[in-house]
């Protein structure tokens, strides 16, 4: 991830992403609130708000794309405290995210939605790493190459949708 990104920049990311959405966030929050141990170390991870479709036998992963990020807004500060460095999803978020990004020096990126067949071609490894009982909502790890992104809220709290 480049370090001079600012709002509205388009770039392609190659590396690891942690897939997590509603149900997994809820479980992590409960564990965090109870001071219980977490299934993974979130330090420096990038969270991709997503839940892939079923994996075809002959492909690395099934259709995959972003879900609506704003549903995860209430969990964001906890995730920042756990050390994640950015989130990826779709759509605008509540204004609290602008403030949190500035306070914690973090980023929010959007990637194309309704383009799940294209994005699946950019995934080169895939594994379920926690909460398999949640099905598509499990915590999953993927490695992507040339994943198309745009900076929607930068680390100064500048929000693309409010420009």
């Amino acid at each position: 991830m480049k370090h001079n990104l600012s709002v509205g920049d388009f770039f392609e990311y190659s590396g690891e992403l942690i897939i997590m959405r509603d149900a997994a966030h809820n479980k992590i929050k409960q564990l965090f609130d109870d001071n219980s141990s977490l299934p993974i170390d979130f330090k420096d991870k990038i969270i991709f708000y997503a839940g892939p479709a079923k994996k075809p036998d002959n492909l690395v992963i099934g259709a995959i794309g972003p879900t609506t990020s704003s549903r995860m807004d209430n969990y964001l500060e906890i995730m920042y405290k756990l050390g994640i460095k950015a989130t990826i999803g779709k759509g605008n978020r509540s204004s609290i995210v602008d403030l949190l990004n500035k306070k914690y020096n973090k980023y929010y990126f959007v990637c194309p939605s309704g383009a799940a067949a294209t994005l699946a071609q950019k995934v080169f490894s895939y594994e379920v790493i926690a909460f398999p009982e949640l099905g598509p909502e499990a915590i999953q790890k993927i490695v992507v190459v040339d994943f198309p992104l745009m900076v929607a809220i930068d680390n100064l709290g500048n929000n693309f949708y409010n420009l």
Partner: protein
Amino acid sequence: MFINFEYYRKQIKDKIIKANLIINSEVKVYLETYKGPFSKVLNDNYKISKIKNIPLCQDTGIVEFFLFLNKDDYFNIDIQGFLDSLVKEIYSENNFRFSTSRDPYMKRKNTFDNLPSMINIIPTKEKSNLSFLIKGGGSENLSFLKMLKPTISKNDLINEVLKHIQLNGSRACPPLVIGVGLGGTAEKAVLNSKISLLKNFNDYNKDEDYKNLEKNLETKINNLNIGVQGLKEGKTTLSTKITVMPSHIASLSLAISVDCYLNRKGVVYFEA
């Protein structure tokens, strides 16, 4: 006429699979003209989904059926059981996603069969048909209902729709297909807003006044400039359609349903 649903089983199944894998032809026409951000990713998407047999979107939705039933037509099966068995088969046999939760709140747990399907039976004076929407959660979350004053000005009515789309539109995969239900009781307005999502993009209201309102809304929504993917370039709505119903003298219900740009839908007609 007697509708033998078993006879239509394969046709219904094929159309639901196709709606998930093959791009809506009206949407494709627009995408081919779009040159803004992520245009290549979006135009590659429907080519890849077709070749690789993976869905256009990972959210293969909840299946909503609209059975339009003429008084002369009838059937004698458990329609929920029949359509559910079909949906279960489709979502188990294909690389789709199981996207339903058995209990909505207390014991949220994936059903791993994508059931139940949502079934609406609607009396019609036209020919009977079975229509369906593949409805993703992100767009469904933009559903809206408000009981307005029946004397509200046209400007204020339009602004209710604009305000809702302006505030929320970027989250539901624009360019949006927008369905409006106007009039009727509250639940009928919501149902009519969904029925509006089934219409083809050029299928404007037969009533001149409502046709003008549809066109006016389309222009004003596009002027919001939310744009394709919410990135401020290209259209904000591909189609905005209105379905109306008579209303209580005290009421004017306004319902808005939103569909993502893919507008995955289909219809099966019954032959005599």
